[in-house]
């Protein structure tokens, strides 16, 4: 059976469409974007409530796919992250209905 991987990408809300385009272009069959409300990194905190411009907001993008598709996409994401913040983890997962990925 194929191995499935779950990409989790934490990135600036303002830049998330770029990441989405990378995922789509890379052939991932889907992704889901979840808004975050606060965070910390690099000894700075952010929170939705501290910033009227919402320019500091982050989102979490979840995308599941089979390994063959995920690997090349990860390289592309690495390229995107040259310019943007971005925390990327990849987890091995079991899926229901593997046909859909």
């Amino acid at each position, binding site marked *: 059976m194929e191995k499935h991987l779950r990409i989790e990408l934490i990135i600036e809300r303002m830049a998330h*469409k770029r990441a989405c385009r*990378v995922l789509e*272009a890379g052939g991932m069959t889907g992704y889901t974007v979840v808004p975050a409300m606060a965070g910390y990194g690099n000894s700075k905190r952010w929170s939705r*409530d501290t910033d009227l411009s919402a320019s*500091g907001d982050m989102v979490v993008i979840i995308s599941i796919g089979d390994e063959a598709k995920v690997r090349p996409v990860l390289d*592309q994401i690495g390229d995107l992250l040259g310019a943007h913040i971005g925390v990327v983890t990849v987890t091995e997962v079991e899926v229901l209905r593997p046909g859909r990925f």
Partner: protein
Amino acid sequence: MDVALSTLLSPIILFFALGMAAALLRSQMSVPEAIAKGMAIYLMMAIGLKGGVEMSKNPLTTEVLLVLLAGIVLSFLIPLIAFIFLRLTTKLDQVNAAATAAHYGSISIVTFVAATEAVRLSGFDSGGHLVAVAALMETPAIITALFLASRGGGGREKPVAGSEQGELVREVFLNASIVVLVGALVIGWIAGEEGTETVRPFFVDLFQGVLCLFLLDMGLSAGRGLRQGWRQLSVMTVGFGLYMPLVSACIAAAFAYALGMPVGDAALLITLTASASYIAVPAAMRLALPEAKPSIYLTLSLGVTFPFNVTIGIPIYIYLALLINGQG
């Protein structure tokens, strides 16, 4: 000076102070993000409509067009000057200096509203086309800043993965404040005084009250930003946030003098030029210059320059407008 005092003690400024105090005392209270964003849209619709209705009462003259042009030129020009000051007097690198400069070239619509009120209280009129000037001054500054950041390799050679042709242009020229401000201006212009009669209770009567709530939230944001960000600001940077508005104001006053603008209009053009953006430009910078640090430009613009402008700045700008009209 009476005007200065009554401005300082107006509920709007007091609510800003309340928010700031609460944040500095580390209260956990907050205004939901959706409400703040909704109020921002409401305020811009109201300002746009009002400006449009005013404009519908007079034909478009060459004078008006010249003022619009002056606004655009100022917005292109100010970031250059701000950038030079930042590079000479602070330790900010090229990208951060450019990003900060963009904020000072663009405008703050709440500062504009506060000035409109102060101008009215001082007994002067102002034209609706100043709203159009505000809309036009939002973006040129961003273009100057991108140019400044990219000089000498500050920018990237190849586009970021996933970035799209025209994405930045859309973000910059079609951001919410421009769409709503310009759209409402045109709608107010088309519909006129009579056509907007039924929406007056919402857009005119409530305006001051909504502004109070919005400024409470701005105070909270500014206070939190200051508390978390002040360590990143050197004395020289904070100083920039205080003298730069005055520098901008003088340049704008020269333009206003050259164009022979009446007191009210001149005061507003000066205020627009002296004000700094804290909503539209920070958002654009995240896309255009992601390497720049929001904790610098946001704290400076919202935490230092905005409070300075609405308390001390506006009376000075009105005084400047009187001066160039020979009434100082």
